[in-house]
């Protein structure tokens, strides 16, 4: 323990971690919610199936926002860095939507 003391030359500030634990519990709650949806809503009907798929995707992006924004501190970076990261990801999503909407039928017929 003595070896630690010599490094503590300056005053060490008190930890400010309340907002980090809050995000942890939000992530946990969203995951629990996903489990509840997975086991209570039946995918037997078309409506149920697509409702489940869309709610799962939305909740995934909610979790993504908290992990990247708070844990990776992207919210605190300058605007140009935020857009450097977010813009290419938006293009990937756009690419995926275009692929499914325009080419989905064709891929389904040739496979």
């Amino acid at each position, binding site marked *: 323990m003595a070896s*630690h003391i010599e*490094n*503590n030359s*300056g005053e*060490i*500030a008190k*930890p*400010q*971690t309340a907002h*980090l*634990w809050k*995000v*942890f519990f939000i*992530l*946990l709650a969203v*995951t629990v919610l*996903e*489990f509840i949806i*997975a*086991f209570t809503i*039946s*995918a*037997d009907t078309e409506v149920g199936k697509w409702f*489940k*798929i869309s709610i*799962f*995707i939305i*909740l*995934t992006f909610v*979790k*993504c926002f908290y*992990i*990247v924004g*708070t*844990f*990776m*501190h992207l919210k605190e*970076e*300058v605007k*140009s*860095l935020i857009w*450097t*990261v977010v813009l*290419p*990801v938006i293009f*990937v999503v756009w690419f*995926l939507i275009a*692929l*499914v909407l325009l080419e*989905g039928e064709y*891929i*389904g017929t040739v*496979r």
Partner: protein
Amino acid sequence: MATTHASSTPEKLLWKGGIQPMKVGYGKLMMWIFLLSDTFTFSALLISYGLVRFSFPGFKDLNPGKSFSDFTFSQDWWPIPERVFEAVPFLHGVSAPLVFVGIMTFILIFSSVTMVLAVEAGHRRDKADVEKWMLWTILGGFTFLGSQAWEWSHFIHGTGGGGANLVYNEYGPAAFADFFFFITGFHGTHVLSGVVLNVLIFYNTVNGVYEKRGHYEMIEKVGLYWHFVDLVWVFVFTFFYLV
């Protein structure tokens, strides 16, 4: 010793320090760019999984009028994940759909919060706190890897229908197991490299490398990577296990 560095670069094009581009260090900026490229790789894997999955018939397409509660495994239709992943260690024969993968998700989210706590401690230059939270993060990483090893082993050995390999699996079309091995395997490789990096920076912290350097930015850089690995798991969890 009067040495002059003759540079062929014109004076006006030289960057002589000052404010960093985007106000982050070089290493941190490059880590973001690397993670962006890794995002493309994982997107490619998950997009191809989605397209292949929906090009195979589902259970209800070939059995109209039946309910998912009558689901059985067949080579003709794509399996539903909650019936494939329903085993938990030490609970042999008990059907607990997605419980184990839920535990794995919890482990990874937890190790993500301990990592960000280590980063926070680094900002305050609190060496003892960085060490404590890095140890928790490393523990979480090893636990996750162990869980994944168990999951793979159970998936490969199967439940009496011949198990799974790259050309055949008892759960459905061969492509199902192929994607399982490639996507979770590629993610697991990332976790493994993350654990190695975590051990490395823990070692450096204990040896006072960052204390001497005057800042703990290396914890932040590795932290970015570790959170990314957690983020990828969030997406794998949704698209492979839930949807």
